């Protein structure tokens, strides 16, 4: 299983590499997707795949790892691929008839590209690499060799060996060439970054004018997935500002309304629902149910206007990501639709009716003879009424910042597949900000389009226990067209909120809503939902430590995914399981 999220173009390139390698159990270090010429990319991917076939993943990652981060990394990578291209072509071309034509096409494209380069592009090219490449492709095309210095001539010969080194020899052979020509001495020469540690007023000033790392807090910041810090293993967390924010309840409400959209319930109804749901561990919390639409009356303060604009921008990014990879996404929708349809077809119930054709019902034959009723046959009619609804509840806390576009796309894929199968689906997201747990309906059961799912954005905390209570309440108030309900939650099994649990008999000082306390709370809410007849399953994506939490909360009813782009498939499996259970249950 692939552990990397690919765009449609990258996935196709990876497929070209896997195909040439004859193996699919690795994620390639290199992908050729850069040039505008598809044949050139194709040939290079073929070479990369063959490198994996003959040298293996470990050898290649060690080899390129020697100079990874070195100031000459780009040059050394290019020269190494030039070397590998020659040995792999020589080895494979006798058994792969397509290679010669592809190689010639690649060479022609190399020279054709020369005329298209701008001055800046020429300057960014490494002269030595260019000379070596030029010599190689001139030779391939039968052109006159370019003028090379004697040292370059020697290097070119070294990069064009007559024999293919074995996997044991390749690393040493290439390192020896680079040593001989003083290109790499075996030690990495890293260009050190400039680091400055500042504190106090100067630090405050700098954080205003410089980009800063994300800190999860109660201030909504809609930001690009790419801006979120991946390297640090997620977002940092600070609960300090949360406590200050608690003191400003009225402004908080207006803040929530302005950030997330109008409430779906009147103030009176919302108070009633809060009274009913915000008890126990959630005492003192607030709820917000919204469809993401904003109220239009009154002047919008600038700070809210900015947030709305940012949310709008994220929606645009989600939409553009989906459409950029439309071919792949359509393919996923059609696969998932087919799987669910097949499962439905296999397990659907059939009604037997009396009819004028079909298989003979001998108990009715007399009717034809005596009362001229010709409906003496059995006909089967498939029961096409939806027998259950699906609620997809997406965690939209800041821990999902890196995946916003992919998550929105996965939500759309699943919703479209279920719509095609006539299974009612609702997609919602939840997050907690300033003591409010916001339940945002992105697509209602009655919506025929999935476009609003693109309004997904991540921010704040996740108070899973309370979100589940909200989900149940909403399910009771808007149950959709079937009696049976499947609730699928995308979760990291790490519930966490800035709003503390208020002091009680058991904890006179109150407690933070995190770790064991929040896991136990969420687990009890899941049990309560199941006791009320709602089928709860989870798609879990998180670290190994949280996997234990997921098991505690959801029992066996969860499926783990490594990458967010596996969400729709995983949810599809859960839905198929539900369809199977329907016929047994």
């Amino acid at each position, binding site marked *: 299983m692939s552990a990397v999220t690919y765009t*449609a173009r990258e996935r*196709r390139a990876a*497929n*070209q590499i*896997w*195909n*040439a390698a*004859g193996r*699919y159990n690795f994620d390639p270090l290199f992908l050729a997707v850069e040039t505008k010429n598809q044949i050139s990319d*194709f040939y290079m991917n*073929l070479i990369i795949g063959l490198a994996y076939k003959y040298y293996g993943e470990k050898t290649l990652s060690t080899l390129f790892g020697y100079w990874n981060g070195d100031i000459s990394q780009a040059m050394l990578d290019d020269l190494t691929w030039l070397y590998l291209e020659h040995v792999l072509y020589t080895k494979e071309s006798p*058994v*792969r*008839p*397509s290679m*010669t*034509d*592809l190689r010639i096409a690649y060479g022609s494209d190399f020279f054709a590209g020369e005329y298209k380069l701008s001055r800046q592009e020429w300057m960014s090219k490494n002269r030595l690499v260019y000379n070596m490449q030029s010599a190689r492709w001139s030779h391939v095309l039968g052109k006159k060799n370019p003028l090379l210095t004697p040292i370059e001539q020697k290097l070119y010969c070294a990069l064009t060996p007559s024999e293919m080194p074995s996997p044991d020899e390749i690393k040493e052979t290439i390192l020896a060439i680079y040593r001989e020509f003083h290109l790499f001495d075996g030690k990495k020469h890293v260009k050190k970054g400039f680091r400055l540690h500042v504190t106090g007023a100067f630090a405050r000033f700098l954080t205003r004018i410089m980009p800063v790392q994300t800190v999860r807090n109660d201030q909504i910041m809609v930001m690009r997935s790419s801006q979120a810090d991946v390297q640090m293993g997620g977002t940092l967390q600070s609960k300090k500002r949360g406590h200050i924010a608690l003191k400003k309840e009225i402004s908080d409400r207006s803040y929530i309304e302005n950030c997330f959209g109008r409430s779906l319930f009147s103030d009176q109804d919302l108070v009633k629902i809060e009274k009913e749901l915000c008890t126990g561990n959630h005492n003192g919390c607030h709820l917000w149910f919204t469809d993401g639409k904003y109220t239009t009356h009154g002047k919008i303060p600038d700070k809210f206007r900015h947030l709305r604009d940012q949310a709008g921008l994220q929606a645009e990014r989600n939409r553009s990501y989906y459409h950029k990879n439309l*071919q*792949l996404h*359509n*393919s996923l929708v*059609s*696969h998932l639709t*087919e*799987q669910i349809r*097949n*499962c439905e*077809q*296999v397990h659907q119930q*059939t009604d037997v009716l009396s009819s004028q054709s079909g*298989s*003979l019902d*001998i108990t009715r*034959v007399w009717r034809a003879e005596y009362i001229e009723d010709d409906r*003496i046959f059995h006909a*089967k009619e498939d029961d096409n009424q939806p027998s259950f609804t699906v609620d997809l509840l997406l965690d939209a806390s800041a821990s999902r910042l890196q995946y916003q576009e992919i998550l929105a796309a996965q939500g759309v894929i699943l919703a479209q597949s279920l719509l095609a199968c006539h299974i009612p689906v609702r997609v919602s997201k939840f997050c907690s900000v300033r003591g409010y747990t916001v339940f945002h309906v992105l697509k209602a059961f009655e919506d025929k389009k999935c476009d609003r799912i693109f309004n997904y954005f991540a921010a704040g905390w996740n108070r899973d226990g309370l979100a589940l209570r909200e989900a149940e309440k909403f399910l009771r108030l808007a149950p959709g067209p079937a009696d049976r309900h499947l609730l699928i939650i995308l979760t990291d099994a790490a519930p966490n909120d800035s709003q503390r649990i208020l002091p009680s008999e058991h904890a006179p000082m109150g407690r933070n809503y995190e770790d064991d306390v929040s896991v136990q709370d969420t687990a009890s809410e899941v049990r309560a939902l199941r006791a009320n007849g709602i089928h709860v399953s989870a798609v879990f994506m998180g670290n190994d430590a949280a996997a234990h939490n997921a098991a505690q909360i959801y029992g066996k009813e969860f499926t783990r995914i490594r990458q967010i782009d596996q969400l729709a498939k995983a949810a599809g499996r859960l839905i198929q399981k539900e369809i199977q259970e329907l016929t047994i249950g």
Partner: protein
Amino acid sequence: MNDLIEFLKHEGISADLVEEVQHYADSHAVKEELKSRIPVPHFHYYGNKIWEEALAALLCGKNLMLAGEKATGKNVLAENLAAVFGRPAWDISFHVNMDAASLIGSDTFHDGRVTFRPGPVYCCAENGGFGILDEINMARNEALAVLHSVLDFRRVIDVPGYERISVAEDTRFIATMNYNYAGTRELNEALASRFVVIQMPPLIQDDLQRLLKDQFPDLTAKYNKQFALLFLDLQKKCENGELTEKALDLRGTLDAISLMQKGIPVRDALDLGITNKIFDSYEQGLIRDVIAARLPAKLRPSEVFE
């Protein structure tokens, strides 16, 4: 049939088994009107171990289940077996709406009377045929329950309201199934226990090349190998979930080579035989990449054949 016996001998299948099969076929006569039901296979199944297991099971009077992925030769083997034993075959393709009546038979109204119209399993059982139960796990388990008494030691068919008939001694059932096929289900234990199950291995390069040589003797050795490898590349892509099983179509590959024989350019023929059968443009791109990684774009049919 003689042709198949020769083929088995040539393949090096156990001489005792081949002799017993020949003896069986010679000593069990087939009614004249059923002779047209004895299959004449277009393809031979390759794989000595599987042949020997299947022949031994059928000689012992067992029913056979061939379980395996798409394009592992399940139906080819089933047809080959009926042919080598010289028995009439009934092909019964299973589907989700299959019921007991469509297997055993149903009532019909004829000349003012309700009469029984026999189904394929009934005919097969009455005439000592080979019943090929294709994709048996497509049907609902409740529909298959009627087969229990036919397949186990009782070997009877009891149709309510009619006579109870015994299954003829020569009757055998060969079921095929693919666990991973969309729309299939787990076979219930009661039914599975009534079969001897052979897990069909995926086609290997050697067997594929021999099959291609059988079908297209004028294909050059170089391209015989390339087409076999092309099929295996697609097989690997399907196994790894990058392509749906629809793309794995041996018949399609053979059809494409036939088209090349008629002068259709190689890439176009492969499009007609394989790529165009997939209606998903992303998957079509993946298939074309697999083809492009093996065969030159300008390859002419005349270069492929001797």
